[in-house]
């Protein structure tokens, strides 16, 4: 009978493909290290490069990156779905450190956030300190002369933007010139370009996109308040059972080793003519740690 034949064929097909999938997966089941990471690191290609080098020393290990915003990356680790987190949101990290989800981590790299805006700079922020610049954008916004586009997605960059507003003692929330997108950095930059608006960006994403951002220019690029600190954390197996702690620590040692740090500080030179990240090199002066602490407190 025709129906029965179709039914049998369907059953066989389902069973075969499920078998195939489970074989395909078990091949990868040994020594998996799962890392949730901020997209701003992953999208530059740096992490794939680090994993590639790591694999040469540890061929039996599969390092899997799940690239999401820092907020989601930390939350997923707390849910038990990652062994390690790479993040750049001190205030959020502090929360997960305090409740014991994360073991004390290491700062492994840093660079600077940049305030970008329209080339004619209607708020006149060029040359200002980051906090003065935010205040100037606020004033210009209130006078109808400037627009600011916000990520509004609880990412590390978004958290930093909120911190800058509060350091400037202003609150743009709800203003008509303040557009909250809920989007990733790429889309946010594209919108800022279309609207000739100001926004805060990580430097890696901005450089990748700069050829598509004809209306925009980096206006404020330096200042302590713009230091962008990347930290690595191993998830605490006492609080979150099932964490592959050993492997996570091996990978953390690699990232912070001389070899790993060399890869980090040279990454991007081929493509952009300058490196995208500075290696933390154990933060010998403790300055990065200090900045991290003061930011964690502000959150």
């Amino acid at each position, binding site marked *: *009978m*025709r*129906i029965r034949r*179709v039914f049998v064929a*369907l*059953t066989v*097909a*389902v069973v075969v*493909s*499920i078998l*195939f*999938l*489970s074989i*395909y*997966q078990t091949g*990868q089941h040994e020594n998996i290290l*799962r890392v949730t990471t901020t*997209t701003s690191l992953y*999208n530059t290609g740096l992490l*794939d490069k680090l994993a590639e080098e790591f694999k040469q020393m540890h061929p039996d290990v*599969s390092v*899997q*990156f*799940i*690239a999401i915003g820092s907020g989601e990356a930390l939350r*997923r680790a707390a*849910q*038990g*779905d990652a062994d390690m987190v790479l993040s750049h949101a001190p205030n959020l990290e502090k929360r997960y450190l305090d409740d014991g989800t994360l073991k004390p981590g290491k700062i492994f790299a840093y660079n600077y956030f940049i305030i970008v805006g329209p080339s004619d700079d209607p708020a006149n922020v060029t040359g200002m300190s980051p906090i003065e610049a935010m205040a100037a954008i606020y004033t210009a916004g209130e006078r109808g002369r400037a627009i600011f586009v916000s990520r509004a997605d609880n990412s590390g960059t978004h958290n930093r933007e909120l911190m800058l507003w509060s350091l400037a003692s202003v609150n743009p929330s709800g203003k008509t010139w303040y557009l909250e997108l809920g989007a*990733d*950095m*790429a*889309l946010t930059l594209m919108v800022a370009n279309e609207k000739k608006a100001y926004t805060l960006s990580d430097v890696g*994403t901005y450089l*990748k*996109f700069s050829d*598509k951002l004809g209306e925009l220019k980096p206006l404020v690029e330096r200042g302590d308040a713009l230091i962008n600190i990347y930290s690595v954390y191993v998830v605490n197996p006492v609080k*979150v*059972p*099932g964490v592959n702690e050993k492997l996570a620590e091996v990978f953390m040692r690699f990232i912070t080793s001389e070899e790993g740090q060399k890869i980090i500080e040279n990454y991007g030179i081929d493509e952009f003519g300058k490196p995208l990240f500075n290696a933390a090199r154990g933060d010998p002066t403790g300055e990065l740690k200090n900045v991290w602490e003061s930011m964690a407190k502000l959150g």
Partner: protein
Amino acid sequence: MWQEVAEVVARSLLISGTATMLAAFWSIPVAMILTAKESEFRRVLLDLTNTLVAIPTVLVGLVLYLLLSRSGPLGFLGILYTPTSIVIGEAVLITPLIVSLSASVLRETRAGIWEMAVSIGATERQALVTMVTESLPRLMSVILIGFNRAIGELGVALMLGGNIKGLTRVMTTAIALEVSKGEFEFALALGGVLLFVTFLVTAIVRKVGKTA
């Protein structure tokens, strides 16, 4: 690079194909039950199914993520961030679609065929078999629509698969990644490949369906 693209295409086909078969496996019997008799209860169930066709993919992804997460009730299975989890997610996602469309196909055939079959003396069972047999070609198109929805969706694959290179990266998550990296041209090319592959599958299934 194109070898990686080929891998991603093959993975997408395998994952979405399995998901579609799985969904068809339970959806069509459900559609048969829902249309076997007219009753207020079944009509409400069908309304509900039609509503669920509109469910956002990322919501399906989130609900299943919380179930499959290591701290969730099904966490012990350890299938989050594997192709299997995407298969399950896509199967769940397209179930309402296949049930809803199959039900409307079956209901139409029923109006024409059931009464005739019964009037010429067929038993209820025989009438049912005739009805489904007559509907097969159109049910096949329904399943294809389900497949196309599965292979083109992003939310479930991103949330449950995690877009892991070499393991759970499928066409749609690869396109999203290239967009966020600023590689618009490559993303467009991948989009073209996705549509072309989907077109091929549609054409092949239609051809095979005709000869069978």
